[in-house]
């Protein structure tokens, strides 16, 4: 049984069909990429998985159980987390605090516990601080733990966002264009880092990405969307040579050349 199964997902915005009959199956521990030209419906797909949009048709199953219609925060507690295309950090909070927010759904402190500063809350808070710090160390930015997130350079912000997502202790992490705005060297670092995540932490990773080098170098399996429909799926080798894919990206004449 696949860890995450999206079956025949359809999403319409008035007359615009953002996703039509999209079925994508994700195996546990895999690195899967969802690619396609701009406007293909990749982010819409992510938004349906994470609960921001409700599918008009279709079903989403996590470990065999339906998560369709759940709120985003409920889906986050069930082990699906994400990063965002244009980084969404809590700018006024420090890096450490941003990561601590990620731990939110695993903490139990409530109004009264906080008010009376009970032992349980204090212990929980300290553990959350330690975990957040460890995560910052893991992504290599522990030295700026007390800096405001909004003041960090772009590359460190990206890493911070990943650390924050990891703090939710997810099974699946959705990375929305993790290499956007990066130069070749940074892209290689990001590629190595994502591989490290899968290898060391057994994470299941789904990526949206435009950088073909990263996609081909990293993904075990690729799904291609175009105009809201899935036009191909397969290994990187299969996708590279698929005429439909080439046509979608480069136009009909290019596919005829290969």
């Amino acid at each position, binding site marked *: 049984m696949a860890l995450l199964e999206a079956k025949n997902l359809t999403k319409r915005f008035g007359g615009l069909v953002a996703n039509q009959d999209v079925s994508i199956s994700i195996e546990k521990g895999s690195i899967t990429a969802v690619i396609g030209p701009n406007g293909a419906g990749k982010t819409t797909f992510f938004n349906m998985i994470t609960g921001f949009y409700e599918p008009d048709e279709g079903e989403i199953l996590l470990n065999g159980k339906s998560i369709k219609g759940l709120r985003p925060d409920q889906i986050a*507690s069930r082990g699906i987390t994400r990063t965002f295309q244009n980084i969404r950090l809590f700018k006024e909070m420090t890096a450490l605090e941003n990561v601590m927010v990620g731990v939110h759904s695993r903490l139990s*402190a409530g109004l009264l516990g906080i008010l009376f500063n009970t032992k349980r809350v204090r212990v929980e808070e300290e553990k959350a601080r330690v975990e957040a710090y460890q995560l910052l160390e893991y992504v290599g930015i522990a030295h700026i733990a007390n800096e405001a997130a909004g003041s960090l350079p772009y590359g460190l912000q990206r890493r911070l966002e990943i650390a924050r997502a990891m703090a939710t202790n997810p099974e699946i992490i959705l990375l929305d264009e993790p290499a956007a705005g990066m130069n070749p060297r940074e892209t290689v670092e990001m590629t190595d880092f994502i591989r490290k995540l899968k290898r060391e932490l057994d994470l299941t990773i789904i990526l949206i990405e435009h950088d073909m080098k990263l996609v081909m170098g990293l993904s075990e399996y690729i799904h291609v969307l175009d105009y809201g429909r899935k036009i191909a799926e397969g290994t990187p080798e299969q996708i590279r040579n698929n005429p439909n894919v080439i046509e979608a990206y480069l136009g009909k004449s290019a596919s005829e050349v290969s």
Partner: protein
Amino acid sequence: MANLTWKTFKGIPLALTLVWIAGFAAALHFMDKSVIAFLGILSSIVLIYYTNTSKAIKMVIGAAVLLIVIPLVAGENRYYMEVASQVGIYVAMALGLNIVVGFAGLLDLGYVAFFAAGAYAYAIFSTSQANEFIAGNLFPLSGEWFWPFLIVGLIVAAVFGVLLGLPVLRVKGDYLAIVTLGFGEIIRIIFNNLDKPINITNGPQGITPIPSPELFGIKMGTPFFFYFIVLFVIAFIVLANIRFEHSRLGRAWIAVREDELAAQSMGISLLNTKLAAFATGASFAGVVGVIFAAKQTFIDPTSFTLMESIGILVMVILGGSGSIPGVVLGAAFVTILQVQLLKEFSNFLHSLQQSGIINLPNQLDPSKFQRLIFGIMLILAALYRPNGLIPAKRKKNDLDAIKASDYGKEKLGILGKLSQLASGKQS
């Protein structure tokens, strides 16, 4: 240049602060009516905040000033005690609104409704008003009931907060402001009309006489007593605020304020977080509403107008939205300005006019100055301190303490999976 000076500013030397306190205390002791001396003592609290010494010493000195020095030198002066209590009440409300507006970023323009809820809760049951709709002639309750009613007022206001919060949660920004403004007005109008068919609030006539608090038979109705009661309540409110600020809930509030989408993706429930903000913020107003009712001994709907809500919002924004010391200073500043300074200034100008030193035309009548000066202060604040008098600043965590923590001996959370690897890899 000014920024550079501020950054290298290490704090006021302790000696200077102590001299300031002693100086103005003495001045107030000998010159009973001196407004400057009174302000000097109050502003020593701000000095203490910026003094270069340990937190413990600052708290001790601050407590000493509030609990010993001020009552000692100003205790007999009803007027100063009255002003101080008034400041305290507004400080408490500003702290409450700070949670809603400052932390959670929810623009609430109807905050005074929660104040009214607490005030009326006490007023109705501590006078014979309750007999109008509850049979058995059980009321009025004596002043001994003031203390438990602080909790009752808290709960009633919190319930109002949840009731307001539920329908408005989907609404954002300007629309939220308008809806909450509407709510504030609706509550006032309801209280104004709730005298028929069942007389619950006695409508525009108000409710009186509300008894003073009593403890073991001692009536605590004078401004002197209220000063301490207000101080006592504020201590709890400030402590609660500090605890919330650096808790899971406080972080959730700020996350919701900064980016709702990202907050949800991290497992934060928007509904619960926003409701908690409304309820908690409202509860502070409810508590001091009870104190207000007891202090004034008479309340009516005119005490709970839109201008009050806006006034408290001004205190929060002027002081520093989201900053606890900021809003305390903002509330103190605005209250003293309104209640004392501007009146003194116009009295001063009036007396000058009467002794013929200056001759002001009618349009420049000093009492009209109050609003003008207040407006000018707000503009100056917006220009030079747009983030507030004391802007909000996130706490720097003690990284050494974190690194040394016992819980750090093993990898927590998802990093726990690392231990499944043979090598002892440490980043």
